[in-house]
């Protein structure tokens, strides 16, 4: 989806159309940008940027608090459209997905025709625009979908892959971040995919380890990862990057409470109870530490989770450290480990130590 959060607001509130819109913390606060409209991006506003900085870059921007429930409802409607085209839909995020149309080509004539129809239905039913990349694999499809945003459709046929990728910066390839980008530039003087393609596989592996081999294939547009449909949620977390680093213990505690409250609410909404709890702390120098523990009983109660989070906090150095990010998460959800058939117990023979293990279910 294109600028999904901002697009939802702009569709429903005509006064916002054509204006730079920033979703996130207030301009005068320490929050960060969750999403920005294209109008705001033109001023250099980016997601994850402190709201205050966004306000300096774009003083006319309208700042709106995020309304995640609203986005989720819209997201469901978008995914309903996807489901009309194929059962092989792999959600990547609230507004992004891979669709495997291999088995559906007879129905739609071609993947390109299907993509056009998806764009038409989303636009007609939701009044939102979507950008689609059509390609033989996930790697190229993803790059293609970003190629002509917003409201674009990019088709890369197998014989076009090499030419399509060649001029792109190495950053366009999945898994290449600032660190890899820098290493490729310093070691091989390479900045584009075309240049990357000239490097031996062995040399890449030497420089980047196993990822070198993957990157060698990506540079050639080779990717055989399947579209994975059902991914069981394994963890649920909330984190927050602060506009300016925090170090006051009281402030840390109240931030953790807010994050825990969000996690607890999300768990309750999904009817999940986690037995694993983790705490993530990133210091101002970007070093990150995590600590985790196991609850006696799987839970989704805010106070129960908070007690665990606060005990984890005591295992982390905070004194005199400036903290950039805090995160709270849960994992190992109840019921997941016993997915599949469950042996029932003879009722009168339940172990006394763990009463009513299966009888009550």
């Amino acid at each position: 989806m294109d600028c999904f959060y901002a697009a939802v607001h702009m569709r429903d509130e005509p006064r916002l159309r054509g204006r730079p819109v920033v979703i996130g913390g207030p301009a005068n606060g320490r929050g960060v940008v969750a999403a920005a409209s294209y109008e705001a991006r033109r001023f250099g506003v980016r997601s994850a940027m402190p709201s205050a900085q966004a306000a300096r870059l774009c003083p006319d921007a309208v700042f709106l608090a995020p309304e995640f429930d609203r986005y989720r409802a819209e997201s469901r409607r978008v995914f309903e459209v996807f489901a009309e085209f194929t059962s092989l839909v792999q959600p990547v995020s609230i507004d992004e997905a891979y669709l495997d149309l291999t088995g559906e080509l007879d129905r739609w004539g071609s993947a390109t025709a299907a993509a056009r129809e998806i764009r038409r239905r989303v636009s007609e039913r939701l009044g939102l625009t979507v950008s689609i990349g059509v390609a033989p694999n996930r790697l190229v499809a993803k790059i293609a979908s970003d190629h002509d945003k917003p409201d674009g459709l990019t088709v890369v046929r197998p014989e076009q892959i090499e030419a399509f990728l060649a001029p792109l910066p190495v950053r366009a390839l999945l898994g290449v971040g600032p660190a890899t980008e820098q290493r490729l530039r310093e070691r091989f003087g390479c900045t584009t995919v075309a240049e990357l393609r000239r490097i031996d596989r062995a040399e890449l592996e030497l420089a980047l380890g196993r990822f070198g081999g993957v990157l060698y294939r990506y540079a050639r547009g080779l990717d055989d990862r399947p579209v994975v449909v059902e991914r069981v949620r394994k963890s649920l977390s909330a984190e927050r990057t602060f506009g300016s680093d925090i170090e006051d213990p009281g402030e840390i505690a109240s931030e953790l409470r807010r994050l825990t409250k969000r996690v607890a609410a999300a768990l309750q909404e999904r009817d999940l109870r986690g037995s694993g709890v983790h705490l993530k702390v990133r210091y101002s120098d970007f070093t990150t530490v995590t600590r985790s523990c196991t609850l006696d009983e799987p839970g989704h109660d805010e106070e129960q989770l908070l007690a665990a989070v606060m005990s984890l906090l005591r295992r982390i150095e905070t004194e005199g450290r400036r903290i950039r990010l805090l995160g709270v998460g849960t994992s190992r959800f109840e019921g997941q480990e016993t997915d599949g058939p469950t042996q029932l117990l003879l009722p009168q023979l339940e172990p006394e130590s763990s009463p009513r293990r299966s009888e009550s279910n």
Partner: protein
Amino acid sequence: MKLRIDRSELLTELIPMQGVVERKSTIPVLSHLLLRARDGRLHVAATDLDVSLTSWCEAEIDREGSVAVQARKLLEIVRSLVGEKVDLEVEESNALRIVSGRSRFKIHGLAPDDFPSLPEVPSSDRLEIPTEAFRGMIAKVFFAVSAEESRFQLNGALLKPKDGSIEMVATDGHRLALVETAHEDAAAGDGILIPRKALQELQRLEGSEEVEFRRGEHHLSFSVGRRELICRILEGTFPDYEKVISKENDRVLECDRKRLSEVVQRVSLLSGDRARAIRFQVEDGGLRLSAANPDLGEAVEDLECSYEGDKLALGINPDYLQQFLVAVGTDQVRFLLKDENSQCIGVPVEGEESRYLCVIMPMRL
């Protein structure tokens, strides 16, 4: 100790000892057998401290005495020999010299005093049970004995004498097997828990028509001919098993045992590895077994059966079902069902003298 003995007779007594000998014990002497020559017999004993087995064979004794020797090695040597007779002689520092024909071995042993003294069970209270019947009873319940050590009171089978019969019961919390055999000498008494390992060894014992059973304060003795197995009584309270067996299962199904067993075998090929379950579905005149595994695929097979009533489907562990089918042994089997969350009771169809039933809890699919 110095003696001459018949090789095959000795071998016959050494073999059953191996099951009792502890293989991975940290106490070296427990991997040994105690040999003692006295009164024209070579006595052999093995123990793991919970279960012990003793026996003897006739021998021409030159000099009485005793020694402890490595059980496995002694068996391997005696088995490998070709002569009819074997000469055994204890030399200095507990070395055992084994000579047969032109073969000569000398193996290092341990002092006989290092061998644990074996418990004795007074010969007051005796009950004789036909060996075949007794072994048959064990075979009918052994598979239901729990191997989970945390529930030690289920790590054995309950032997319960009743007036005119003997009952044996085992359960692991998922299923329960009960067998009752008529016995005119039996009189009602307390149930005794026989530990798993003793049951296992008892199943192998042969040598006489009758098993002589005696009960001591802490130990049980089972004598079969010249062999005597002594085990510690498993402590703990066995569950009130009669309460476990449902009286409400009014849906009755009968089918051919062998055919059902074959179908279970085939269908369970697709039941998965981790939580094995097959679907057991009955409706008028038919039984349908099926298995589905997200990684593998599906299997379905129908079987004729006598059943009249509402359609009912329950999940069941195919191994549990199969173990019952093997143990029950009759041509036809009967299942008593209630619903998909309640126990399924398997019983033989032919009117045997003994009562036998196997309660199996279903799996939630």
